[in-house]
């Protein structure tokens, strides 16, 4: 027997140190996951991470802390946690997560045995899963894929250390500890085969996990756990109160705000205006949603999973195509959902607390989501005009001009769309401008008026994120109109609104996004925060509609009734690829539901059927060809083809017969003389199997036992005896096969 080289094995001390290392790694992973949550505790996470890194690098100092000190830490921590909860009620999720962070850090530092190791593991799992569930981010996939093998490794090491009570009480000595030494020892133990096996096993885990994920039945219980939501604030330019400049400030942010799965690229008929919020009230340089619009009767509330089309603004039946648009709205942007126009139905993934304003055609959630929120719209239509509500029509038909509006009496919508809360001097300047623009004409249509104002603004002002002329006395917008020369979209829109109101046209500011880009990697539409924009809606009394006007210089036409074909950029490259990964994540994982399961099952069945049919058809065609070939009269060509086919078949047969000789030749050519002779190798395999079967034979089956022993002797002769040709060995191998095929009598 050859002498075995003594293998390096990890000692109990090494395993304890390895366990400590893995625990620290899991803690850092958990803290990383928690950092994605907006807990107002970044300082705590940073401190925790630094402490863990310090303990990681200097474990000797951690062990030097006396055990008695840990007894004091517990009560102190309990007091801190209780105080945190008390101070933050009723919002208890942030203090809960802070408590988990504190416990994690405590657990890393305090001495640990098996029970404490499991506590640490559970805490880390809780952090990763809760953070993932709240953020619904692609990072969760990365974190859980890092967490799973580390957790398995920790459990495995704990299992290896389970050697009874004597080993359970073992405390490693860290005096001679060195990370380099430990890593080297682990590297010696873990050879490439073990690593490869570990990789295969992990792939198996992921594969089984994905299979389970797909197969798990989904039932729509349709009730969200209310406390698992972290309140977050919207971006200031997309909330109910927008100051001048806040929309443009978002424009510096290139992060994605919205991703849309569109039915096709052609479905984007014109430049999309993703309408989110309508601001009717103007006060001292800021637009806002008037108080009336923030409650009933203009706003309705409810728990809905689906919203039907707007009354009076439906998609005509003939134009319905059952085309679905899926929106993935990033968290932390706004609670108002971007909707560019009319639709047939709006659906959510689950029952939602939702608010809708039928008169303004707005939909909002009850709070700003921290994570991605998805919704689906059926048969979306693009239109520059939206029908006015009856209340608006009645109000505007009875009240013709801004002069008739009460000043500071506090107008109520729809009259807020005509309100001009500015002083007399600013008012006079506006009137002067209007006179220059429209002269004495009083029956100008809204569209014509819009063209005039837009033209004026574009000719006299240029777009810039650094406006001028707004610092003077009086109203900043009026000041800009008179003194400024450059400004951002809000100033253009605000100016239009004030001018329109002064001229007697109800007008309101609209904020949202415009345009976007096309991701060529995964074929979806991307809207970024930098696409945030403000435009105007002016009331057209003739058609009783709200007309969209974009006075900001750009690609939009001056005539608001003219729609330009969509003009957007195509995104490709590294950023687009990363974005497409997120989209895949949202599509296939986050939004995976019962319908997707059914679709997948149906697709698999259809694919299977189609494959079988194709195979069958292929075989039939092949069979028909063969029959046709035989039916053909003999010809030179046929004979040659037949001879070639027979030659190939015979060659294959002889190769199989001479396989041992050929393999031996191959090994010799490859210069591997140390490889065992193939006959001997085969004899070894048969010998092992025959001996295994011999053990199962009963002593009374004399004939079989005798046969088996004879066979073993022959196989041993082949294995250990003089070299024998493959021809002679084949008879013995055939006999061995016959013996192995025979069933053992019971």
């Amino acid at each position, binding site marked *: 027997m050859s002498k075995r080289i003594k293998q390096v094995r990890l000692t109990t001390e090494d395993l304890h140190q390895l366990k400590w290392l893995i625990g620290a790694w899991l803690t850092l992973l958990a803290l990383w996951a928690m950092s994605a949550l907006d807990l107002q505790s970044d300082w705590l996470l940073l401190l925790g991470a630094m402490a863990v890194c310090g303990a990681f690098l200097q474990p000797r100092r951690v062990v030097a802390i006396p055990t008695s000190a840990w007894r004091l830490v517990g009560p102190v921590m309990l007091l801190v946690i209780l105080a945190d909860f008390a101070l933050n009620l009723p919002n208890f999720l942030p203090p809960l997560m802070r408590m988990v962070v504190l416990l994690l850090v405590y657990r890393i530092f305090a001495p640990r045995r098996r029970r404490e190791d499991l506590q640490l593991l559970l805490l880390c799992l809780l952090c990763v899963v809760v953070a993932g569930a709240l953020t619904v981010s692609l990072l969760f996939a990365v974190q859980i894929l890092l967490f799973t093998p580390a957790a398995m490794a920790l*459990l495995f090491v704990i299992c290896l250390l389970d050697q009874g009570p004597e080993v359970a009480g073992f405390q490693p000595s860290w005096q001679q500890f060195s990370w380099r030494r430990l890593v080297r020892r682990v590297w010696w133990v873990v050879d490439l085969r073990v690593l490869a096996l570990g990789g295969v096993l992990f792939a198996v885990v992921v594969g089984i996990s994905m299979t*389970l994920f797909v197969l798990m039945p989904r039932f729509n219980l349709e009730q969200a756990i209310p406390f698992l939501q972290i309140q977050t604030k919207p971006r200031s330019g997309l909330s109910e109160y927008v100051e001048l400049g806040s929309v443009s400030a978002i424009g510096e942010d290139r992060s994605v705000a919205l991703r849309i799965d569109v039915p096709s690229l052609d479905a984007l008929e014109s430049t999309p205006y993703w309408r989110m919020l309508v601001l009717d009230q103007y006060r001292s340089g800021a637009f806002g949603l008037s108080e009336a619009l923030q409650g009933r009767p203009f706003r309705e509330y409810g728990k809905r999973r689906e919203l039907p089309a707007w009354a009076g603004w439906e998609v005509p039946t003939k134009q319905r195509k059952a085309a679905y648009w899926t929106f993935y709205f990033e968290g932390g942007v706004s609670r108002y959902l971007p909707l560019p126009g009319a639709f047939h139905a709006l659906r959510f993934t689950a029952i939602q607390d939702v608010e809708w304003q039928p008169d303004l055609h707005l939909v909002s959630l009850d709070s700003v989501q921290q994570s991605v929120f998805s919704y689906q719209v059926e048969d979306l239509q693009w239109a520059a005009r939206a029908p006015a509500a009856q209340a608006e029509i009645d109000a505007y038909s009875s009240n013709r001009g801004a002069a008739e509006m009460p000043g500071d009496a506090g107008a109520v919508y729809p009259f807020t769309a005509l309100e001009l809360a500015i002083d007399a001097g600013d008012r006079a300047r506006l009137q002067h401008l209007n006179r220059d623009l429209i002269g004495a004409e009083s029956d100008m249509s809204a569209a014509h008026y819009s063209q005039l104002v837009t033209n004026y603004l574009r000719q006299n002002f240029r777009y810039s994120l650094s406006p001028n002329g707004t610092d003077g006395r009086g109203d900043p917008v009026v000041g800009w109109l008179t003194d400024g020369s450059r400004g951002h979209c809000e100033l253009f829109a605000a100016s239009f609104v004030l001018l329109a109101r002064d001229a007697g046209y109800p007008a309101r500011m609209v904020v949202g996004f415009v345009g976007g880009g096309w991701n060529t990697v995964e074929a979806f539409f991307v809207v970024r925060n930098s696409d945030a924009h403000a435009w105007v809606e002016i009331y057209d009394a003739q058609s009783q509609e709200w007309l969209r006007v974009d006075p900001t210089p750009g690609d939009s036409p001056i005539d608001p009734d003219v729609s330009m074909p969509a003009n957007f950029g195509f995104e490709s490259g590294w950023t687009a690829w990363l974005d497409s990964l997120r989209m895949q994540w949202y599509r296939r994982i986050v939004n995976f539901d019962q319908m997707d399961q059914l679709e997948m099952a149906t697709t698999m069945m259809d694919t299977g059927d189609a494959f079988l049919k194709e195979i069958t058809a292929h075989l039939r065609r092949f069979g028909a060809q063969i029959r046709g070939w035989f039916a053909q009269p003999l010809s030179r060509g046929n004979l040659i083809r037949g001879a070639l086919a027979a030659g190939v078949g015979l060659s294959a047969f002889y190769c199989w017969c001479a396989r041992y000789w050929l393999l031996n030749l191959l090994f010799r050519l490859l210069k591997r003389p140390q490889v065992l002779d193939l006959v001997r190798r085969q004899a070894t395999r048969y010998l092992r199997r025959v001996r295994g079967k011999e053990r199962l034979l009963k002593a009374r089956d004399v004939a079989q036992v005798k046969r088996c022993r004879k066979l073993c002797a022959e196989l041993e002769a082949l294995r250990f005896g003089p070299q024998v040709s493959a021809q002679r060995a084949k008879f013995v191998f055939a006999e061995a096969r016959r013996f192995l095929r025979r069933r053992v009598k019971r």
Partner: protein
Amino acid sequence: MAKAQAELRNWHDWTDPDFFAAGRQQETRFLPLFVRQLFSVEVQRTRPTVTGWCLILVALGLGFAAYNTASNILFLALSLLLSSLVLSGILSFINFRKLTWTLQAPAHLKVGEVGTAEVDLTNSKALFPTLCVCFRIETVLPNAEERVYMPQALGAGETAKLACSFMPQQRGRFEVRLSGVESHFPFGFLRKTLGASSEQSVLVWPARIDYTFQASPGGQRIASGISRRNAGLGNDLLNVRPYERGDAPRLVHWKATARLGKLMIRQLAQEGERGYHLYLDPDAARWSGAQFETLCSLVGSLAEDLFQQGRLESVTIGDADAMAVRSLHELHNFFDLLALLKRQPKRMAPISGLRSNRITFRPCGESGIAIYVEANQAGQAHH
């Protein structure tokens, strides 16, 4: 135990690592197999550990939350947990596969002597090692169970020995039983226990005790140098016979061995004085319990010493025929009988005989035993 053994013989469980090996399957009917899975027997159990219960609770919580919120993130986490459980089952199955073990115990020990039972492990797998296996070894005298852990991984094709020490406290048949093999491998979720029916019986001889024995040699004295027809430890060659277990290696007759092709022993003639014949009367009326134990220890110690001096001819227990003790093997046979000897109600027939140098034993006081050679007290021993 017998029931468990019978159960093991008829046991077939699909979770048995070698269930699918040819020849193991005896039961092929569906219903009995199905019933066995529902009502597992002692032979195999798979129970969740504390970690396993935590996993189950976490999975339940995750599942509940996932269905409540329809959050695919939670479904993903749940599926990862369940897949790790599946992997745990697969690895646990592989861990036990082609792992064979046998229990080896010493054939005999003395009371108070430390014995070592060994479990010979063999991992016949071609690729995978076996890890984290623990054997439960039970002993009868005293009733105790010990767990013997495999300290290191057992690589593919390797063997290992695990030792378990025990100290029998009383003579008799000492059973060492391998009652189960268990493992938490790989993640500690499940404790898988396989039944094992390996049992070894150790005969525990009586302990040595101190005694006094001074007997004047009685009987006919044969002058030194004159050999007798009895086999012994003299110098004259009496016979050449085949080897028997217990024969001293120095007595091997090498020439005869080479000629005949098997081990042959020189049997030497007895020289010098006649040996002693021990008579042991296990009458229950004569001996109390404690005294009987002392008697057995005394007889064993005396027999051993006399044998070493070459002065032991035969031993007789009760009414049985005298048993010649010429070799170590025969002495050990006598010790085996001593180990299992019990007080008998039947009184031994008076010794008649032609044998001289008879050693008998009588109670001496409450706990003592006197040694008599013929009718003369030659020594004694106390408990």
